[in-house]
């Protein structure tokens, strides 16, 4: 498979998954804010802080009001990680590999992009919070639909595995960030830990990750450490961090044909190390060393895995150094 094509299908899936997770990310905050007692001021700045793009945001918008933050993360085309930007890049990638993916996949991406694009045009004409809740619902669903269509209509060949790899890595990364939001929300008022409000927030978090029902079956009570364990280490829940990286490892080895547990390139080695670490750590270890610190470290290691994947499979530099490269927009930290 052409390196450019592998790169495009990897990023096509990352961008779709990213759009979905940005929607989840805002949604978790919308839900948290709705449940705040009156008198407690809303916090939207932490959302931008966790993206790592706070400076870019402040230069463009100034104050972190709900409206500004949502506009920034949803429709801002100058911001490469907004939902609309992600879908535009996803569509460009899909367009450049239309002959590789199924036409159903292309139609799904095309419709998805036009749906959000239309919402951006209509933005401001409607009841805003209502519009956004509906929009985020549709974004999440369109992302699921894309994954389903891809699964059902494309041969499970090398290209498909690259796509899965992109989606799983993106999902693991964003799951870490969504968990981190909770940490930031609570940071200014440590006395709220353990209160009913704290519990409501963990529930909102689980719901935003579509994990609430599955969590209840696994562990009936809402216990913060258990919620974190479920979202990070559960081996059966498809949106847990551990599940995502183990699956990603399987895809990577399907591509190369190397047995899992061994390695033949930097990508396999760095992902294997990360999987081993997650496979043998306990939630108590994580909490003892700090949840935020763990999540931060995990994101860095995952970035290293992504770098290795690029270098191993997509890198165009060794052969055509004088020509411009196919640079995906990934300059920002998430």
């Amino acid at each position, binding site marked *: *498979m*052409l*390196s450019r094509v592998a790169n495009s299908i990897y990023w096509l899936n990352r961008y779709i998954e990213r759009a979905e997770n940005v929607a989840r990310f805002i949604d978790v905050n919308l839900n948290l804010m709705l449940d705040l007692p009156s008198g407690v001021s809303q916090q939207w700045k932490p959302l931008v802080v966790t993206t790592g793009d706070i400076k870019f945001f402040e230069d463009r918008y100034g104050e972190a009001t709900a409206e500004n933050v949502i506009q920034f993360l949803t429709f801002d085309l100058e911001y490469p990680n907004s939902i609309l930007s992600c879908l535009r890049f996803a569509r460009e990638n899909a367009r*450049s590999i*239309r*002959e590789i993916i199924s036409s159903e996949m292309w*139609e799904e991406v*095309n419709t998805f992009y036009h749906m959000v694009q239309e919402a951006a045009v209509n933005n401001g004409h409607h009841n805003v919070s209502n519009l956004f809740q509906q929009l985020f619902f549709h974004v999440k669903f369109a992302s699921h639909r894309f994954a389903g269509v891809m699964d059902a209509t494309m041969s499970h060949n090398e290209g498909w595995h690259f796509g899965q790899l992109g989606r799983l890595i993106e999902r693991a990364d964003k799951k870490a960030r969504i968990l981190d939001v909770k940490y930031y929300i609570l940071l200014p008022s440590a006395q709220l830990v353990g209160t009913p409000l704290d519990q409501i927030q963990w529930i909102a978090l689980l719901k935003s990750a579509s994990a609430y029902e599955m969590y209840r079956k696994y562990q009936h009570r809402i216990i913060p450490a258990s919620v974190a364990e479920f979202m990070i280490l559960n081996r059966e829940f498809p949106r847990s961090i551990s599940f995502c990286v183990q699956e990603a490892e399987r895809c990577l080895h399907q591509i190369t044909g190397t047995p899992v547990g061994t390695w033949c390139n930097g990508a396999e080695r760095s992902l294997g190390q990360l999987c081993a670490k997650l496979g043998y750590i306990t939630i108590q270890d994580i909490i003892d060393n700090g949840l935020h610190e763990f999540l931060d470290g995990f994101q860095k290691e995952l970035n290293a895995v992504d770098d290795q994947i690029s270098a191993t499979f997509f890198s165009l530099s060794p*052969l055509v150094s004088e020509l411009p490269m196919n640079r995906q927009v990934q300059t920002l930290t998430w």
Partner: protein
Amino acid sequence: MKLETYDPTGYYDELFASKGEPRASAKPLIDWINTLQPGDLRRSQEAAQIALFKLGVTFNVYSDNEGIEKVFPFDIIPRIISAQDWKALEPGLRQRITALNLFLDDIYNEQRILNDGVVPRHIIESAPGFLKPCMGLKPPGGVWCHITGTDLVRDRDGQWYVLEDNLRVPSGISYVLENRRVLKSTFPSVFQTMAVQAIDDYPSHLLETLLSLAPDQLPNPTVAVLTPGIYNSAYYEHSFLAQQMGVELIEGRDLVVLDGYLQMRTTKGPRRVDVVYRRLDDIFLDPTAFNPDSLLGVPGLMDVYRAGRVALANAPGTGVADDKVVYAFVPEMIRYYLGEDPILPNVPTYLCWRDKDRDHVLQNLETLVVKSANEAGGYGMLVGSQSTAAERAEFAEKIQARPRNYIAQPILCLSQVPTLVGEGNEIAGRHVDLRPYILHRGDEVYVHPGGLTRVALKEGSLVVNSSQGGGAKDTWVLTD
């Protein structure tokens, strides 16, 4: 929906012999349209247009940074060509392509036709499409132009004329195939009664043509379509053709010359490419041989090509025959190389570098179409009868400054086809041309039945190019 009042008087109409009287070939279609309710056609057309947009069957209109995607406007009423008419066209097209191919092989090698003075040497040497780096090349099987799109028109009396030949990278076949797909789902019943020739096998013929170029003894040659990328106006077509043939779609940045071969970079290392259907203009193919500023092509590609280690379709250098001055000599080429009379006439053409022709052109601008020899897309032309005095003065100056660059032709009265116009259900005649696609495999020349019918959607307009507000119609060639 009644077409009884449709009046084609004054023009050659492709579907009607006279008011209220459909041609025999079109009668079942017209009868069927007459049974429709008002609004049915318009609704079908809108549904078709939405379907095409969703499928992304679009072309790009260039703007400052990104292309704007547009659906190629599409008219739901097809154009019909009788079996008899088609049989008259096919041998004419074959003859023309055969002669053009011999011409290309000759001017890049022995140059007999120039030495014998049949075509003036200075015309060829001053043609921007004549590429010196191609001198002495011998493409596989002696074929230079594998894929041609030749534009035809019919005049007021129904006579066919060749308007121009497109020998570099003719576009449009994907719209032909997609429009047919849409019409089949819109008018299934009509297809069953009318014996329309099927066209879905074009990708198979194209693939066979490309495979025939692969070096002998290669068990499983790698064929690829080379595109400038997603912002090219015809990108949809490039990706469509690659997909329909099941071959790779590549860009210049995927390619590199390595160990004397053209190779594409894959996730498992470099892999040889044997046949390239290039949808890039000649001068972008290889910055070391042609335009050094181009980033689209592959440095060293021409060396690999010269060594016979990769085949290119069409061969570089074919663009010389797209020059409208060279076009004027095609009838001479047919006589010279084949010893035959041309079956399909050219439009009579005045060549402004000839003093006598130029004087005539300058004195009769109002009744002529003036065209720049090397522009496409309906740019750089003057339709005398629809021009202002200022525009004519401007063209007169241009012609005098660079006579080699201009030709003029009488204004033909292009044939028309009933077309849905305005916002409602009105049907009126609109002018059309026809671009059939011809594949040259050396031992065989295949003419694809039908082709792209372009329609000038503006009332009275003779310019059918999509960049000038033209649209397309499905073209039905009937079987006997």
